[in-house]
């Protein structure tokens, strides 16, 4: 049973790596958006070092997965777990990229006077963050129901993104000097919408991992 025990430990270690990466991505999003909403430049300081860690984990997780496929020939639930880990890995890396994207825009926006108090963007960030948290919880616990309810929240984020766009459009129309700032905010909301999409992908991978059922590209869930 030694080989099987090592195998189980290796699977456990892989799960831990994915979670560590997820935690970092979550923190990056949180810091970037909070910095922007609270006009706190200091909060951006940690984002870049965290990105380096995420990038390192991105490579390491793929290495570990490939090694397990090559050496252990996983099947069944283990195979689905490893396949999910590889895909979730990609989504988490993209989430981290979007967080960096937000951080850059926050840097620019903090250098100029505030356009307006931010309400919808922090709201979007909260939902995206909750979605990411739930997606990772669903991954850890193999909870396909949580994954399913999390996917449904993506619509809220999409809706808010449209709302942000409409509101900022009125600012830009009435005063063209607001355009650069409004554009940055629109791109921030776009980044948050992408983050929610990636969290949705993670949930879809979790459902596949648990149920062996592919729910992608099937339109709105019943």
């Amino acid at each position, binding site marked *: 049973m030694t080989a099987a025990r090592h195998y*189980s430990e290796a699977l456990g270690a892989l799960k831990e790596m994915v979670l560590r990466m997820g935690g970092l991505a979550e923190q990056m999003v949180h810091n970037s958006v909070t910095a922007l909403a609270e006009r706190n430049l200091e909060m951006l300081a940690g984002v870049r070092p965290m990105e380096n860690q995420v990038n390192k984990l991105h490579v390491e997780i793929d290495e570990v997965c490939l090694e397990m496929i090559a050496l252990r020939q996983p099947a*069944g639930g283990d*195979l689905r777990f490893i396949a999910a880990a590889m895909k979730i890995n990609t989504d988490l890396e993209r989430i981290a990229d979007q967080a960096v994207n937000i951080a850059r825009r926050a840097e620019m926006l903090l250098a100029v006077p505030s356009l307006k108090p931010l309400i919808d963007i922090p709201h979007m960030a909260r939902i995206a963050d909750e979605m990411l948290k739930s997606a990772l919880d669903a991954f850890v616990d193999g909870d396909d129901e949580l994954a399913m309810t999390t996917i449904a929240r993506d619509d809220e984020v999409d809706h808010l993104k449209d709302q942000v766009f409409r509101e900022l459009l009125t600012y830009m129309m009435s005063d063209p000097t607001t355009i650069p700032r409004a554009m940055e905010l629109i791109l921030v909301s776009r980044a948050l919408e992408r983050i929610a999409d990636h969290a949705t992908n993670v949930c879809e991978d979790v459902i596949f991992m648990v149920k*062996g059922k592919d729910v992608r590209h099937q339109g709105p869930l019943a």
Partner: protein
Amino acid sequence: MENMNNDVLKISGLSAWFGSNQVLRNIAMNIGRNTVTSIMGPSGCGKSTFIRCINRMHDLTPGFRLSGSLVYEGTDIYGERVDPVALRRKIGMVFQQPNPFPRMSIFENVAVGLKLNGMKMPKSELAGRVEKSLRMAALWNEAKDHLSRPGTSLSGGQQQRLCIARALAVEPGILLMDEPCSALDPVSTGKIEELIEDLGEKYTIVVVTHNMQQAARISDFVAFFLMGDLIELDRSAKIFTNPSDKRTEEYITGRFG
């Protein structure tokens, strides 16, 4: 499985005993034409007993008893009028250890199957059948210049392909293989596996294997046996990515026992 009319072999309620020891319990499964089906399971699960039932290899085993029905192309395999020797021409078997006849040449090893089955034919036709069988067994190119050499002069992997050629020569309807690669090195195993995949397009093949990766590589369907029960039979891709039964999952992920 999709097309019931295309099933070559229909098995239902198959139970088997050695003395008082029951080794198969109420097995029901069909084998489709031109498919490769792997029988997989841990030692002692009854998989070898199972495929030996298909061509009546247990007939002379003292204390062996069987119930249920095995129907090959509409004929009850255990019917009173069925001659086991004639049956084995239709349902051939390749064993774990390559077993070419030691005193026969490569050519004779293949031709002997035809002769033993009383299939008389002109020499030229016989030579044609031998060549065809050796080609199908992917041995022709290696053996064509040495057909008069003893079969035992070949390597282990070549000997196993020779035995496959011998089995194919009589044009069986089903080819049974009992761990055909377990005595072979990885290169020879690779060749036999490739051969099984090729043959699966024209033949119905049932393979017993201990090797899960082999089952995954070569077969269309996999049947998982455990302690005499058929736990699950499904397409290989389904079995190895998302099996229906927890016991199958435990076995394929190595968490068994």
